[in-house]
């Protein structure tokens, strides 16, 4: 399962749109500002590929919207930006009484065999790792369902790979072709003036 050229193409289009919107803002700024702008627009482009069907993309859009509302609104103007930005993610419901009761039960179950102990430890470890994964994937804290979390992670990884592929090819091309661009544009200028 690798990112297709179709996805890359779409991502590139979105990202270019974002950069173009950002252009007037980043023309005369420092490198760090520009880096932030590029990162933001790439993130929004990646998230908007899913059109709000996945949890992580919605979470990412909301996160970026808090940082730069204008850009996100401009970039998502085709896809009902308002609903995506303002849509509340489903909260994980956790009843206090039930949690307390389960803790009590857990404490009561002291007498266990060795194999049970080991199994419990393994389960605890997996739980901790899952929590780590939740922290890494955007919007992971809203996915109370393990299946959902893994699905979203799958989706997120494929999107990230798309993003990285496109960005890398662009950076390579930009670094390699920058001199050639200058030459070519000079030539172009002359032809236009003629």
């Amino acid at each position: 399962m690798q990112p297709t050229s179709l996805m890359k193409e779409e991502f590139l289009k979105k990202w270019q749109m974002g950069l173009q919107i950002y252009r007037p803002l980043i023309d005369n700024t420092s490198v760090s500002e520009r880096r932030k702008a590029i990162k933001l627009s790439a993130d929004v482009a990646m998230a908007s590929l899913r059109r709000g069907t996945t949890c992580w993309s919605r979470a990412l859009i909301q996160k970026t919207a808090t940082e730069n509302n204008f850009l996100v609104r401009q970039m998502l103007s085709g896809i009902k930006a308002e609903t995506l930005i303002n849509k509340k993610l489903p909260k994980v419901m956790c009843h206090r009484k039930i949690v307390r009761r389960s803790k009590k039960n857990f404490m009561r179950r002291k007498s266990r065999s060795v194999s049970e102990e080991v199994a419990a430890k393994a389960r605890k470890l997996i739980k901790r790792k899952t929590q780590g994964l939740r922290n890494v994937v955007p919007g992971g804290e809203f996915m109370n369902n393990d299946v959902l979390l893994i699905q979203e992670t799958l989706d997120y990884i494929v999107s990230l790979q798309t993003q990285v592929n496109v960005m890398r090819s662009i950076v390579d091309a930009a670094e390699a072709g920058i001199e050639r661009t200058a030459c070519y544009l000079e030539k172009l200028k002359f032809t236009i003036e003629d």
Partner: protein
Amino acid sequence: MDLTGRFGGRSGDGVPFREATALESLHLDGDDEFRQMVPPGNGGGFTALLELPPTQAVELLHSSPSSSQATHHSLGTLTTFPSNSVLMERAARFSVIASEQQQQNGNVSGETTTSSVPSVERIKNEPAETDSSQPLISDQAVSPCPSQNNRCGKRKDFDKKVKSSTNKKNKSSEENEKLPYVHVRARRGQATDSHSLAERARREKINARMKLLQELVPGCDKIQGTALVLDEIINHVQSLQRQVEMLSMRLASVNPRVDFNLDTILASENASLMDGSFNGTAMQLAWPHQVMETEQSYHHRQLQQPPPQQWSLDGLNQTVWGREEDQDHGNDHNSLMIGSANLHPNQVKMEL
């Protein structure tokens, strides 16, 4: 179908049991589908796109011109374009995006027809579901093609059902509708009550997805043990995120010179070219050598025929043109993407 009938017959005494079996059957059904394509409720149908060969996907993408044109028309009539050239450019870009989205819609429905024909047919046979899908159809009555619309609506309905049943909400409404499912059987020595059946189905589903994840993450398929696999996945995601940071840093450090050059050039160019070649200006930040390509091609086109410089307020006219441009664009990307995922400097020079 037979089994649901039977369960329906004895639903008086065994309601919870039936509920559970329907549920886990749904899980399994989703599972099978996931192997073919990710359920679009969560995956957005993109992994299904991954499964399709790219040529086919492209064909599907371009197969719904009528619907996109219709939206263009509505867009064109709604928006009045100002005389400012930059704003016009932007507006054109947006209309292009809108068309793209519409095409994507068409694409999704096309997928439904190709990859999951059986499920759709099954749904079609059921009168209750068509009833429930009516409001959805009326909701998205944008595209003029009714059959496509129907499919979309049904598809969404189906997805909604799968989602809601996994969330274990509004079971009572689910109960009334007959759902397509795969029967789960307990092997010898396994518990047969509904809870453990459901739990087993859930575990199987998680395992299947974990396997997919292992395939996706490089160097992860040899590792045994869920905790280690999860560790590896976390590392992979973090490394990807760091790569994005690094790449944006590199691009930010590269950009200003390109910007400067292009700005001076564009300032010297005449306004008509500026108006016409929003394509090139769109490219300029991101992909310098492609800028050249597009501008080159644009010049060729200009030599052959005068470009549509007058931006008439007629929505259809201009947006159709925009779409043409867009498709050309897409082809450019495609060839580049497929041919050179990792561009060598030498290769770039060769191309130039």
